[in-house]
C-alpha cells in the first residue's frame, strides 16, 4: 500500500522522531510505514489521518497500479 506520509511530514518540517512522538509510536514504525515496509493497523491509520486532518484515503492508496 502506497502512502504520502513522507510528503506530508516534509510539508510540516517534522523529523521522523517528531512524527513518531505525535503518533505515540517508535521512529522505526514511522520509517517502516514511509518506506511501505509496513501497513499500519486501522487505529494507527485513523490517528495519522486525524493528525494531518485528512481522510485516510487521501494518505493511503491501495490501488495496485
Amino acid at each position: 500500500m502506497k502512502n504520502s506520509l513522507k510528503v506530508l511530514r516534509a510539508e510540516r518540517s517534522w523529523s521522523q522522531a517528531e512524527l513518531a512522538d505525535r503518533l505515540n509510536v517508535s521512529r522505526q514504525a514511522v520509517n517502516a510505514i514511509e518506506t511501505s515496509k509496513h501497513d499500519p493497523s486501522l487505529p494507527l491509520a485513523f490517528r495519522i489521518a486525524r493528525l494531518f486532518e485528512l481522510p485516510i484515503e487521501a494518505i493511503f492508496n491501495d490501488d495496485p497500479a
Partner: protein
Amino acid sequence: MSDFVKKLYSPLLFDCLFGLAGAVALTGVMADASRTYPAISPAAQPVAKSAALIGALLAAALMAILTARFDQKHADDFIFHTLTKSAFIAMFTTFFALALWQALFAANLGGVSSYATIGMLIASWSLSYFYTRVRGTRS
C-alpha cells in the same frame, strides 16, 4: 504510553534481546548435540501425567494470551506486527525442521531433545525477527 513502557518496547531493545537470545540458542543447540539423555520411562500414573500435561498446557496458554494482550496494548504497531509475524514463521520453521529431521536424519544421527527443540524455536524466532525487521512486515 508511559516512558518506562515505551522504553520496554523500544525496537532497539528488541533488536538486542533477539540478537542475544538467538546467539545463546544457537550455541545451546550445538552444545546439546553431544549430550546424552536417559530414555523417557513410561509414566507410573498415565492418567495423572496426562491431566498434568493438559493443565500445564492450559495454564501456559492463558499466560500467553495475557502476555500477547499486554504486548498488543503497549507495543507500537510495527513492533507488534514484527513480533507476531516472526513468531508465526519461527513456529512453522521449527515444525518443518523437526519433521525433516525425523524423516531424514533421526535414524542415523539420533533424535532431537526437548532442550534442542526450544533452542531451535528461539533461534528461528530470532532469525525471522531480523528478517521481518529488515524487510518489513509485508515481506
